[in-house]
């Protein structure tokens, strides 16, 4: 072994720096995330507790159309769960002292971030199906549901909100509670300014919330008409896609900088 020449050192090793290989490795990160975080505080609190509390707060004593009830609930659950792991993974792993080992592996920080996105995506979309199915069963809206609109809508929104949530873990802290504070102070206002449990007024401030466009997708998925006119769905998907992409690139860039400060 000692006689090998230098070429041999790198030969016969798995290829590492192709896009496909890194993508594959990001799924391993996802597997780990799912195994570790499914029962961790932030996920449970934000995925189950918050939606229930907020749901009661929003709907108590109000007379709400069934469709808005469904779209509001699905949006809230999807947004809160899809953004629940992203912010805690880095501080958690820093604190648990597993981050350094992870970073030494032949993967880029983008691979880790992608892995985190897939896991948030999985949580978000799975959790969102629960109220969708429950409410649809209760209100018997199956007949009017258009899954070819709703399913892609859930996928794109879960991805967009997941990449958005990664931004919240950029500050190099090792205390998940710190990012939780930041997270809550950004996530809650977003929920409150969104047109949940009510019709969308396309001329109002609700336009600035990305959640609005997902609400519109779900509404359209049941009623067939978008609040934004005949090209409404195109706008909805376009905005969510752009929103997700911008935050993905921002997360790649910012994490690349702050990861150096985590040691």
């Amino acid at each position, binding site marked *: 072994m000692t006689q090998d*020449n230098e070429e041999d050192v790198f030969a016969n090793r798995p290829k590492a720096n192709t896009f496909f290989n890194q993508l594959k490795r990001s799924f391993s990160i996802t597997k780990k995330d799912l195994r570790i975080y499914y029962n961790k505080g932030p996920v449970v609190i934000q995925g189950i507790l918050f939606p229930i509390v907020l749901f009661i707060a929003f709907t108590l004593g109000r007379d709400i159309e069934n469709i808005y009830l469904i779209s509001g609930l699905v949006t809230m659950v999807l947004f809160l769960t899809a953004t629940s792991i992203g912010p805690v993974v880095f501080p958690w792993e820093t604190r648990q002292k597993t981050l350094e080992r992870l970073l030494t592996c032949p993967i880029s920080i983008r691979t880790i971030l992608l892995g985190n996105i897939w896991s948030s995506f999985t949580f978000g979309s799975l959790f969102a199906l629960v109220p969708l199915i429950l409410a649809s069963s209760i209100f018997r809206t199956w007949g009017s549901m258009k899954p070819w609109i709703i399913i892609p809508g859930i996928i794109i929104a879960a991805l967009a909100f997941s990449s958005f949530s990664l931004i919240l873990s950029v500050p190099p802290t090792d205390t998940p509670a710190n990012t939780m504070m930041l997270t809550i102070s950004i996530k809650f206002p977003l929920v409150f300014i969104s047109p949940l449990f009510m019709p969308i007024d396309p001329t109002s401030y609700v336009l600035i919330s990305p959640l609005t466009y997902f609400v519109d997708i779900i509404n359209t998925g049941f009623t067939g008409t978008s609040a934004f006119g005949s090209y409404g769905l195109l706008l909805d998907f376009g905005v969510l896609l752009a929103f997700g992409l911008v935050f993905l690139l921002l997360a790649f860039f910012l994490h690349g900088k702050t990861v150096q400060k985590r040691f």
Partner: protein
Amino acid sequence: MNAIEVKNLSKHFTLSKKRGVGQKKSNQSLANKNPSISGLVKAVDEISFDVKRGEIFGLLGPNGAGKTTTIRMLTGILKPTNGKITIFNKDLDKNRILIQQIMGHVPEMANVYLDLTGMQNLELIGELYGVSRKERKNRAELLLKKFELLNWKDSKAKKYSKGMRQRLLLCMGLMSDPVILFLDEPTSGLDVQSSIIIKELIKEYHASGMTIILTTHDMDIANELCNRIAIMNKGKIIGLDEPHNLRKLKQEYQALDVYIKGEIKIQEIEELTNIKKVQKKRGYYHIIVDNLKLAIGEVIEYAKANNLQLEKLNTYEPKLEEVFIKMINGETTL
């Protein structure tokens, strides 16, 4: 051939009140010692060295010397402020992922994933190194067996003892079948038995041709394991040599702590053949000697002859820091 070549490597940290993670204490203490450079810590300061293929290379130094920072740069996770690292003739900065593919790393104070089983921990690392499914399983089983963890492979690491976690961490470092293995303080904080197991395995992997870079602040471990040792202090390499020279250096600072009833005449003792210097301390005398055995005899003789009652006599191993201070002061060189 050189496995690693390091040229003028530096890492500077800017101190701010709101630091990220870890090392807050030593960081503080460094700032205290060196108020002149407050705001800038030269954790690693223009170091250069080579590591030959197949050798065990030790980085020896006291707390805060810059060992971990050096390792972090060599493993590609910390970007140097200055300097160049070449690994098997490839620039680390330009080929990070390719090079990491042939490395293994056991970080200082790292931990395994407590919510995963031993097997899942190894599987994860195997997957991240792109090891095929079959090979992953083989390697994991082999390592777990070697490190006596096979019976625990399907228990969550939460249930492991500290020594078991450290051993699992070593398995994780070896999962990639590395050509170069980095061990940051591999035995610190472990009981004697665990550290013996680990030392034996280090020797075994070295014998099989692996290049190993380890850090320690324990001179004896460095002596026992390393082919060559670089001594670091305050970010600089102040000596680089084979361990037998270090051993010699250590011998030069053997001393005795003598607890004795009554006054002794320091001058008289200093005149004895094997005694170099006597310092009066609180309640005892610190005697720097040439040859420990002969000096002990002389001290006992002296006490007898002068009717003094010896209460206690401790031999004294020099601390690394003390040897350093001598080296830095130019009293000795390595």
